[in-house]
């Protein structure tokens, strides 16, 4: 804890601790219909949710691993050795004092309550499967904003959430969205009423504490007409000996004229498989913006997308990925244009260090008879060592005459002259390298909320340590 700002701390060393497990609820290892029924029973799911889960399981078992295009490393996930549900056995707490002592200590170290006290509008922390602490500032609550866990959301507000749940990302979207549909627990359900502009960001924190555990949070954010909301999530896990799985589904719905900004800073330890499906649905004049920072994990596969359904809607993905030794950051973006005058923008910057591999995979789709749709895609990759690797695999489909699309990518090295210049002025090579890398991502980082950009810069410095010389 060397920082003054107790923002959600994404320093890997701080995240690398684990408390003994005291889980009352444990679905055991492996996945079968029994697991699903166990989860549904414990969570007292309504029948339709139970059915939804069972359909998810069926689809998951039917679908093959997407290794015809994705990394073969996926085969290293042993689905039968994973524990799919762990919980302390009590629901989310409303006040910090009610939270059990050891869990509290975990989050104290992660800096959550300070955060909230300072300025965050509400905070939800997820420890293994369930939200352990959630609160939403009074003022925000009075505006009618609902900020609850997925279980509570589906149980207490079905009239709001059921309509969109599983609609942006259907069960069968991919193997891992199906898995999440089967065993999801935790995550945030947010509803922002028409015209409400939530001034401060809402925040969630996800942490994997148990070995061989899979975390499957499910998040659904609905911004009603003309409303605005910013949501931030951070993720960590301690270092375990065996691989751990994180497979979330995040659905965003921006109704007419609404704005959603979704910020992720993940700092998974190097044995986490992070396979996340994120998609937003933008109605007329709405705007959805994903800001995504991927650091750590063994393999991350994450392609935040926006379906631009309404006229003049806008979608944006800003992404930073840092792949260190042995890591593969397979990230990108999807923009599906489905109405006239929709615009999308993708900016991706990746850094590969040591034997790290950063991959950009993108999809831009502009179907027939649309007018004045625009997409801009820029991917820049920076390679630090001779063993570093980077790939770019975009797929762009355009039909018709009214649209314009441009894609650009470049790959480069840190310029030797820059390093030389800085060394001339007394910086060590490592310092110079770190500064140069921070400069590379600076124009993106500047768009982040203040404390995130500070943390991210520090985190990049940390990752760059020992990468030269």
């Amino acid at each position, binding site marked *: 804890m060397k920082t003054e700002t107790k923002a959600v701390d994404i320093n890997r060393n701080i995240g690398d601790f684990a408390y003994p497990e005291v889980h009352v609820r444990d679905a055991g290892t492996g996945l079968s219909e029994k697991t699903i029924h166990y989860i549904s029973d414990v969570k007292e799911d309504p029948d339709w949710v139970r059915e939804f889960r069972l359909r998810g399981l069926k689809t998951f078992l039917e679908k093959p691993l997407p290794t*015809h*295009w994705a990394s073969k490393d996926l085969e290293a996930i042993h689905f039968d050795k994973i524990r799919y549900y762990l919980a302390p056995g009590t629901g989310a707490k409303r006040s910090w004092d009610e939270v059990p002592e050891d869990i509290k200590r975990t989050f104290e170290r992660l800096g959550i309550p300070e955060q909230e006290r300072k300025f965050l509008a509400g905070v939800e922390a997820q420890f293994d499967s369930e939200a352990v602490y959630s609160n939403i500032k009074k003022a925000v609550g009075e505006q009618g904003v609902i900020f609850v866990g997925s279980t509570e959301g589906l149980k207490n507000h079905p009239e709001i959430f059921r309509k969109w749940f599983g609609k942006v990302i259907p069960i069968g979207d991919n193997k891992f969205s199906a898995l999440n549909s089967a065993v999801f627990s935790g995550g945030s359900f947010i509803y922002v009423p028409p015209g409400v502009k939530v001034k401060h960001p809402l925040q969630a924190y996800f942490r994997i504490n148990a070995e061989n555990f899979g975390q499957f949070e499910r998040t659904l954010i609905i911004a009603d007409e003309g409303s605005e909301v910013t949501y931030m999530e951070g993720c960590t896990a301690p270092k375990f000996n065996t691989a751990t799985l994180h497979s979330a589904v995040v659905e965003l719905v921006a109704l007419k004229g609404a704005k959603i900004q979704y910020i992720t800073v993940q700092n998974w330890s190097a044995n986490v498989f992070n396979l996340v499906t994120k998609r937003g649905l933008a109605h007329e004049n709405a705007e959805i913006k994903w800001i995504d920072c991927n650091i750590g994990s063994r393999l991350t596969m994450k392609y935040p997308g926006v379906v631009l359904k309404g006229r003049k809607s806008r979608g944006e993905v800003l992404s930073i990925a840092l792949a260190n030794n042995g890591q593969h950051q397979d990230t990108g973006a999807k923009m599906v244009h489905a109405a006239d005058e929709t615009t999308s923008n993708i900016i991706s910057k990746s850094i590969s260090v040591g034997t790290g591999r950063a991959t950009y995979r993108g999809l831009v789709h502009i179907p*027939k*008879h649309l007018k004045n749709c625009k997409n801009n895609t820029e991917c820049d*990759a920076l*390679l*630090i*060592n*001779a*063993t*570093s*690797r*980077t*790939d*770019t*695999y*975009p*797929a*762009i*489909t*355009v*039909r*018709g*005459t*009214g*649209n*314009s*699309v*441009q*894609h*650009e*990518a*470049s*790959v*480069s*090295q840190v310029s030797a002259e820059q390093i030389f210049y800085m060394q001339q002025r007394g910086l060590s090579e490592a310092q110079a390298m770190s500064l140069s890398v921070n400069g590379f991502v600076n124009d993106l980082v500047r768009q982040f909320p203040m404390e995130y950009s500070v943390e991210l810069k520090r985190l990049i410095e940390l990752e760059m340590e020992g990468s030269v010389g």
Partner: protein
Amino acid sequence: MSSSVALDEVSKAGSVLSGPLQSHDFPAWFREQQQEAWKQFESLPSPTRKDQLWRFSNVDLLDLKSFKVGGELSDKDRDAILEQSSGLDSVAARLVFAGDQLIERDVISEQLKKRGVIFQPLERAMVEHTDLFQKHFMSQPAVLGSAKFAALHKALVSSGTFLYVPRGVEIELPIEIFHWLPGESASVFPHLLLITDELAKVTVVEHFRSLDRQVAGFACGVNDLIAGPGAKVTYVCAQTWGENVRALQMNTTTVDHDASALSLNLHLGAKYSRFESLSRLTGEGGRSDLLAVSVADGEQEFDARTLQDHVSPHTASDLLYKNALDGRARCTFGGLIRVEPHAHFTDAYQKVRNLLLSDDAEANSMPGLEILADNVRCTHGATSGQIDEDEMFYLRSRGIPTKVAQRLLVTGFLNEVIQRLDQPAIAAHLHQLIEEKFAV
């Protein structure tokens, strides 16, 4: 599998799917290779759209059942083909193939022959220059998706061109080759094996044409282009197959140290035309330029897959593909720059630009990078757009009809690629072919 071929021989006689013909004058070792290739063709799975290398491609069009191999060429057709085999005004040599039969041959000058240039049909080279042939003939595996069709080509190839340019020999005028699809359901398996030795220089222009522009046909060609140290190889393809032809072309260019290779592929014809181009840079100082122009309309589908494979450090490659799409045409570009480990100081570019002229045209672009070395400079770009309204307005306000203005702007758009060839006579011929397509 070969026994099943024998059983089916009666029902599939003359079909592409009945296996290698036994009647060729090929040496036994090559006939064996053909049998091997046939087994490979039969055992490899057919491509599906789920294969990353066939994504967006209309694989259903690759049903080969109805296509025939061999067949006699009537005197009337032969005369018609010879009459229409006009391309460049002055060439160093010329071959005309119709249905894979060599029907005319203008040999190279005595002077070039004396300096060691070899220009002969493939089947003779197999016998007379066995070592060179065996070393280079299809020596690179087809890695861009069509391994099955490369095997089919090898099994069924019955003739082709062998060109060897020895050390230091520069052939100023281009060498011209015609490949004709002669009739209904015909198939051809064109092959060009071009080997240049140190500091040699040569330009080859290939024309792909159909005698009857309406009938169905199938073409499955492979080219091996080898640029020796310091050599300069220019390859131009002018593809104007008839409108019901399905065509596959797999080209491999190998660029040795300080050599440069430039290929320009013009695609105007065929219902479905897939073009795979692998450029391997194996020696320091090598450079490869990959250029292509397509004009697609109606229901045409063009599918281009490329790989710029930087094996050696200090190499450069530059790809520029431009497509103009009208009607319900579809174009797919899947390209990859691959920088192998240790191939430092690579300079690689890749750019694909689509000009959409109608509301039903579709352009798919997949420009890719795989970089495994750090000291490199690589960029790629893909754009899709339409004709600039201001440019159109400028031309219209000067009294030029819309149709003509559009044609002018498209020609200008494509000309940037053709100019890169820096050979005015060939460029003029390519422009003429584009004009003819617009005129229809």
